[in-house]
């Protein structure tokens, strides 16, 4: 156990910077998971709308009627400056001009450039209002195309648009909504796992693998298999404790133990912690300096997290970026998170593939580490080679 204990002491000496990472991440995690997510749910708001009807036809009046339902119609202003001031100070949200000939053009089946509008601030309600205008035009022209006259078509359009349909998002069940904060915590976990494990494990392994120290160890009575096993055990203990600390933090932030599909996120994080460990082992084979380890950590963690959708959602990344990201384990880690968050459909086979690919990355780096080690120690005696 001598190597095991010494390696833990070496790890402890390298742990200082990792504590800062963990503390900051815990703090950010608490803030993020405890923030009120209900504010992000959109509710339709009444808009102050100025309607300047220059057409005064059946169609224009029907449109004005439609808009006035759920919004506040403000009387038109005498001049444009007053309107601009009112919009600037938020007394008016939207100004609509229905030009002369609107009724005739829409009745003729025209749909483009029928209306002119003016607004300053963008919002979801503003988008909703613009959609209402588009829907009025398409619905009215549809009724006219069916052979109805102006009055009947206007009435039918008004009735159709007055109906509100209650929508339930089928893929986002209540459980997922409750775990949203926890999933945000786990979404950012790859970055912190990479930073903590790489910054601690890599320099510790490098110290133990230092050529002269290794020579002295090889001269001793300890068997190489015992040495390797002790270093491996100490590394596994360290990585396990770090991972467990984050899993427990997740429980604390969640306020409840993991259940159901949430165990997948735990397994997912374990695989990623293993990946960070084998990457640290692989890098340590090249005996990098402290500065190089730091650069390597930042490049690999930040690069992977930006490319794979940890910091920026995968849905916002270009197809080219995602094509590259598929060759990185963080991409598959985030896919599991997205499945559990209801962003993409969850299937057991897809989840198994994502986990399997991460496991394959771990296996690949273990093999690469062994290969590099074999090459580096090619000149060192491991068996008797002298001729008889």
């Amino acid at each position, binding site marked *: 156990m001598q190597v095991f204990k*010494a390696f833990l002491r070496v790890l402890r000496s390298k742990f200082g910077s990792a504590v800062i990472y963990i503390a900051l991440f815990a703090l950010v995690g608490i803030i993020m998971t405890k923030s009120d997510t209900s504010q992000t749910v959109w509710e339709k708001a009444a808009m102050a709308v100025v309607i300047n009807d220059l057409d005064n036809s059946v169609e224009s009046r029907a449109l004005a009627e439609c808009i006035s339902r759920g919004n506040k119609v403000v009387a038109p202003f005498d001049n444009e400056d007053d309107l601009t001031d009112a919009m600037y100070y938020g007394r008016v949200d939207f100004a609509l001009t229905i030009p002369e000939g609107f009724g005739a053009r829409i009745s003729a089946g025209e749909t483009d450039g029928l209306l002119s509008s003016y607004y300053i601030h963008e919002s979801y309600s503003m988008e909703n209002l613009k959609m209402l205008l588009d829907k009025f035009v398409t619905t009215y022209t549809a009724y006219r195309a069916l052979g109805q006259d102006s009055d009947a078509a206007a009435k039918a359009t008004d009735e159709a648009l007055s109906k509100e349909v209650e929508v339930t998002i089928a893929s986002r069940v209540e459980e997922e909504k409750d775990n949203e904060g926890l999933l945000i915590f786990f979404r950012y976990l790859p970055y912190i796992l990479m930073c903590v494990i790489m910054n601690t494990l890599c320099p510790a392994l490098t110290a133990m693998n230092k050529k002269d120290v290794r020579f002295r160890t090889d001269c001793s*009575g300890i068997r190489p298999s015992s040495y390797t096993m002790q270093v491996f055990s100490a590394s596994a203990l360290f990585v396990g404790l770090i991972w467990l600390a984050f899993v427990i933090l997740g429980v604390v932030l969640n306020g409840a133990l993991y259940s159901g599909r949430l165990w997948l996120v735990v397994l997912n994080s374990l695989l990623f912690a293993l990946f960070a460990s084998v990457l640290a082992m692989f890098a340590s084979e090249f005996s990098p300096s402290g500065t190089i380890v730091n650069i390597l950590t930042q490049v690999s963690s930040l690069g992977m997290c930006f490319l794979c959708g940890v910091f920026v959602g995968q849905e916002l990344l270009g197809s080219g970026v995602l094509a590259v990201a598929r060759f990185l384990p963080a991409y598959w880690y985030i896919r599991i998170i997205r499945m559990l968050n209801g962003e993409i459909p969850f299937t057991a086979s897809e989840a198994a593939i994502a986990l399997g690919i991460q496991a394959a990355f771990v296996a690949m780096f273990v093999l690469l580490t062994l290969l590099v080690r074999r090459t580096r120690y090619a000149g060192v005696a491991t068996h008797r080679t002298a001729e008889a």
Partner: protein
Amino acid sequence: MKPTVVKIDNLVKRYGELVALDHFSLEIKEGEIFGLLGPNGSGKTTTINCLLSLLTFDKGDIEVFGQEMTPTSYDLKSEIGVIMQNVAVLDELTVRENIDYFCGLYVTDKAKRKALVEEAIRFVGLEDFVNFRPGKLSGGLLRRLNIACGIAHKPKLIILDEPTVAVDPQSRNKILEGIQELNRQGATVIYTSHYMEEVEQICTRIAIMDKGRKIAEGTKDELKGMIRNSETVSIEILELPEEAKEKISHLPHVYETEYDGEKLTVRCSGGRHNLIRILGVLQEAELGFGRVYSELPTLNDVFLEITGTALRDAKE
């Protein structure tokens, strides 16, 4: 007759085209302080690495304590202490933790190890620095820590590969005295160096190496007896007529005379009154002279005479 501790027979080690060890043989008896002397690149460290099974070799046999030495001879390795040329300690551990770690690779019993670690700390005089990390130690103290890590488990065979490189004279003396003390306590020592003074000072038997071959072996007196030179006389003199130089070179036992305009160097083989006879010639010619030195041959002279190159030149 004392038993053989190390026996190297006909060892050949090649690095591609370069022959690092060329049919090198050696036998070291129990209780010796055996010096391996030679310039850098002569094959000393390669010999040690092969002896410790850290390197493969192309031909030959190595026996330690009468048994064949292989990479898996863990029992044999447990009886050997190694102090490498470079300081091999963990910068992240304190002095005590380092000694305890390396001692623990050999001694598993905790109580026994604790006593051994304390003894090693006392032996190298690091009592006041036990909680220091290596980065806080001076070069000399660091070398002492390096030695403590290698000898804490009380090995029967201690191998020191140039342990005094870049060490101040005070620490060097402390290290050399320590090696002699370890030997008095019963350890057989193999000491490699290119500092001939050190080897002369502590080694009971010496092998001189050059280009992977052993060129001479014996006690320091035996080695010096192998060469023609027995005394070198140097005289500071600003004027030396050719006639006087001729007379000196024809004196009994004088075999070489050199004069560079400031100093006369006369090499003699055997004889007892060489200095008196040389000074007699100078007085007879009424020549004034400055400081006079008479030096007995060194291992450098042995190396010079055998290889045609001085040790100090060869190591550059």
